[in-house]
Structures are given as structure tokens and as C-alpha cells.
């Protein structure tokens, strides 16, 4: 809430998160795949933070997130491979280019009603993949581009999983901080207001179109940087990672984890990453199980797992202020 501001406690949560991030590899390093999964969780989480601003808090069902993820990935890949731009700068450019693409698309497309917005963004995502596949000389087509360079600061190169983990999570924490600031501000309140009652929000001075565009753009920036992080981690890029199925997957992540909170984005990212691991031997059933989980979440847990946790915690609080005045009919 925007009016909560106890000074000492304000630094507790971020410090705690930072501590967990630093300690995690030491605790979990024993598990064979831990660092790899932690990196993927960090990337998915960052991209889903962006989507949660658009979808969870803003209430816009955008299925174009994978396209911005891809625009970011290809921007960074092409800049670093073909123009020799230092990777970290290329990643930044990736975010900016995705943001610009989103800003241009936002105004015409965000006017559309729910169903139409979903379909239009779906179509956009599909068109993006086709353009990538058909332009071999530029993007490497369906086979993609290999040997992408690793990011570096001076002579310090992030070429081990351990180092990459810290890069990813440093950015993920930064994204968390920015998103949290926005959500807690009046702009965040305005967004939630928008989702509850566009009419009411508009009459309060909320410029509906502009707020939607802002969130769409920020979400795309996060997706773009996430995409860049992903491809340089694999040091390989191909259009298969940016299909519309991935856009739908991200929506599923948020629906299961909790669409209107950062914790939800995190939980969802964790679940989707460790699911194949849990199902070892039966990974092929992963997509099916995740899909069923998704439908169940929408039906039974509209606020996702994070919402369930929140409700459990609120059960402990006393109910203050009785709102039991009777209403008489005119």
C-alpha cells in the first residue's frame, strides 16, 4: 500500500532477498542442475514481472510477450555478433528496442477489448516468428545463430554458470525493485483502479490509454532484456524459443503463481522450471500437467498460489471496523 512507510522495515525485505540470492548457490550447489535452473528461474521471473504489470495489475491479456522477448534476444545477438557491440550494452539496447516496438504497437492495439486484444497480440507474435524465419541472411532463419559471445565487464567475463547466475539475479532484483516501486506508487494504484473500474479510474484523472501504454512498454523492456540474457546464456538463438506457445506459457506461469504479485511471478517461474525435474523420466508429461494445473488455477485459485498464501496470512489478522449498516431500498 502506498501509505505504508515504516522506515527500518522498508529495507528488510530487499536486504533479505539479496541475502537469499547470494547464499542460494552455496546451499543448493550440491544439486547437479541447481545453478542452471536458478538462472532460468531468474530469467523467466524477470520477464514475468513485466507481464504481471501488463496482465496481473493492468488487466490486459497480452499474448505478445514472447515476441518482445524475441525482439530483445535478436537485437542483442545481432548487435554483439555482427557489429561487435559489447554484450552488456547490447542487452541494454535489447531492452530499449523492445520498448520502442511496444510503444509503437501500444496505442492502436491497447484500445481493443479483451478478446480482440488477446487475438491481436497472438497474431503479432506469430507474424514476428514468421519474419524471423524468413529472413535467413539477417537472423539465421530457423537454424538460428550460434556462438553468441558472453557478457563481460572489462576482462571479467560472465562465462561460467556461477558468474552468469549473479548477473541474471542482479538484474532480476533490479527489476523487482522497479516493479515494486511502480506498484506501490499512485501509478500502481491507478493501474489497479483501471482494472477494477475503467469508468471510475478515468473520472479520477487516470489517463487510461497512457497508463496501459506505459505498462505495456515497461513489460516489453523487461522481456527484451530477459530475452537477451537467455540467448547469451545458451550462446545460441533460434526462433523456437520465441513462439506464441511461450507467450501462453508465461500467462500460465502468472495464473498459477499469482498474477497480481511479484511473489506470484517468482513462484510460477519456480514451478515451471522444476516441474521437468520433479517428473524425471516423465518430462514429456510436463506440458500436459502444467496445462491442467493452469485450468485448475483459473477455476479455483484466481489469485494463484501467492493469493492463497496471502489469504492464509490474513486469516490470522483480527477484523477491524464492522461494516454492517443496513441498506434500505429507495
Amino acid at each position: 500500500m502506498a501509505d505504508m512507510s515504516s522506515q527500518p522495515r522498508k529495507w528488510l525485505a530487499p536486504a533479505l532477498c539479496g541475502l537469499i540470492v547470494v547464499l542460494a548457490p552455496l546451499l543448493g550447489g550440491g544439486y547437479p542442475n541447481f545453478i542452471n535452473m536458478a538462472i532460468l528461474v531468474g530469467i523467466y521471473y524477470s520477464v514475468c514481472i513485466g507481464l504481471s504489470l501488463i496482465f496481473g495489475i493492468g488487466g490486459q491479456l497480452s499474448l505478445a510477450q514472447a515476441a518482445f522477448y524475441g525482439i530483445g534476444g535478436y537485437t542483442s545477438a545481432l548487435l554483439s555478433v555482427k557489429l561487435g557491440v559489447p554484450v552488456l550494452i547490447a542487452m541494454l539496447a535489447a531492452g530499449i528496442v523492445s520498448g520502442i516496438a511496444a510503444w509503437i504497437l501500444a496505442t492502436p492495439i491497447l484500445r481493443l477489448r479483451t478478446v480482440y486484444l488477446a487475438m491481436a497480440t497472438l497474431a503479432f507474435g506469430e507474424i514476428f516468428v514468421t519474419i524471423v524465419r524468413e529472413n535467413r541472411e539477417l537472423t539465421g532463419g530457423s537454424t538460428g545463430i550460434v556462438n553468441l559471445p558472453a557478457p563481460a565487464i572489462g576482462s571479467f567475463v560472465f562465462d561460467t554458470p556461477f558468474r552468469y547466475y549473479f548477473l541474471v539475479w542482479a538484474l532480476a532484483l533490479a527489476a523487482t525493485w522497479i516493479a515494486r516501486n511502480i506498484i506501490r506508487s499512485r501509478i500502481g494504484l491507478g493501474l489497479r483502479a483501471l482494472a477494477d473500474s475503467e469508468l471510475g479510474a478515468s473520472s479520477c484523472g487516470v489517463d487510461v490509454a497512457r497508463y496501459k501504454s506505459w505498462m505495456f512498454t515497461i513489460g516489453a523492456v523487461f522481456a527484451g532484456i530477459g530475452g537477451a540474457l537467455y540467448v547469451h546464456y545458451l550462446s545460441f538463438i533460434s526462433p523456437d524459443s520465441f513462439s506464441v506457445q511461450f507467450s501462453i506459457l508465461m500467462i500460465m506461469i502468472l495464473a498459477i503463481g499469482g498474477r497480481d504479485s511479484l511473489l506470484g511471478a517468482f513462484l510460477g517461474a519456480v514451478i515451471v522450471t522444476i516441474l521437468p525435474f520433479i517428473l524425471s523420466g516423465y518430462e514429456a508429461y510436463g506440458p500436459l500437467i502444467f496445462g491442467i494445473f493452469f485450468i485448475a488455477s483459473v477455476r479455483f485459485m484466481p489469485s494463484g498460489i501467492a493469493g492463497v498464501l496471502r489469504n492464509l496470512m490474513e486469516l490470522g489478522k483480527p477484523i477491524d471496523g464492522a461494516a454492517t449498516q443496513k441498506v434500505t431500498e429507495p
Partner: protein
Amino acid sequence: MIVRTERLSRRYGGVTAVDDVSFAVERGTITALIGPNGAGKTTTLNMISGMTRPSAGRVFLSDTDVTGLRPDEMCRHKVARTFQMPQTFGSMTLCENVIVGSTTRGDSGLVGAALSLPRFRSREEEFAVEARALLVSLGIGHLADMRTSSVSFGTMRLTELARALASHPVLVLMDEPASGLSRAETQALRTILLRLKSEGLTILLVEHNMPLIMSTADHIHVLDKGRLIAGGSPQEIQANPLVQQAYLGLVEEPS
């Protein structure tokens, strides 16, 4: 004169909801817009607040032509409104609802929010404090942290009013603020309206509740079938035969 309509009209296909309506609202008064159901009162209010585009005519705010501006732009011009069905934000607390009302004040810049700059933060805290004070002044301060979806209808109405006041408007448009309220709540509303007027606010309200109007309004305009048929003080309107005819058979019971 604070707001003035000039030959305002609204047509929907073959139906004319509002026909050539021209009236003015004087600064610092409580003005009521009354009329039988379907007279076009809400549509007129919608055209002033920017929710509906007029088919013809103009709306002036102190000599500035504000015809066709969006609701959020009207809010920037210091015109706030409440709705017949309260458009409160159910998932947020009362306090948060009111804070949204202050969106047009201060810096709502994205960069300041995203980076949580100190100057930005302290302003936000001010708005939060002010929001609570507004709720207290309307008698619901003790419910400030309750979820709006779980409070009573009357409290929702007051929250919506507090939210409207948070934008520091010069003119507040209210659409049937007394509908759905108990007798006690209506009395409280009357007290609030008179207090707001004494603080310099101008209020234009659409209402059916005659006793409330008679005891609160300084000036009344009467609409019937989309046309303005009368205007004057409460006493003049009560005695006006045209008005009585329009309301024949539709006399409101005092609530």
C-alpha cells in the same frame, strides 16, 4: 458562472435523449437537475463530465470550451463526479480509493515512481495522509483500511465522494447520490453537501429525492423528455404547473 451548457443535445439513432438544453450553474451553489425517469438528466451530466460526446451543443467551464474532453481531462480541469452506481475500486481499500482521486495533483511521473525518488516518495505520503483526513471528514475514517468490496453501500458512496474531493475540484457532479441510502444516511449526506458548499465548492446534482433537493438546492433545473422545461428556486419550481404536470403520478415518497 462556473459551468454552462449551450444547446446541448444527444441523439441515439432515432431517439433524442437530450434536446437543446442550455443552462448555467453559478459558482458556490448547489444546483439540482431533476425530472421524471428518462428525462435525460444522467445523459446531460455525462456530456458535461466527458463520458458522452454531445451530438450538438457546447459545454463551457468558466469561458473555456470543454466540449468533448475525456473524463480524465475534465478531472484535470477540476471537475469531479460520482456515479449512480458507485464506481469504487473493489479490490482496494477505502484509503487507496481516495488516493487514486489525487492522481491529477502532484507529479504522477513514471520515472519518479519507478526509481522511488525521495521527493516523489514524500509527496506520495502527503497524499496518503490527506486521503485519510478526507475519509475522516466524511465520517468513515475508521474504515479507511477496509476493502471497498466489503463495506456497506452507503460507505461506498461516501468513499466515492471522498475520492472526488481528493482531486481538489471546483465543481462536483453527483448522479443520484441519495439513491440507496437510508433516512439517516440521507440526512448525513445533506449535512455534508451544505458543508462542502460553505467551503466554496460548487455542486451539480441529479436527484429524485425531493425533500433532499428542496432543503439543499439553491437552484433547480427541470428536464422532461430531454428538454428543459423550468428553472428557478425550490419554491418557484414547487409551484410551477409545468413541473407538476411532468411529475403527475410520479410523486416521490419522502424517504
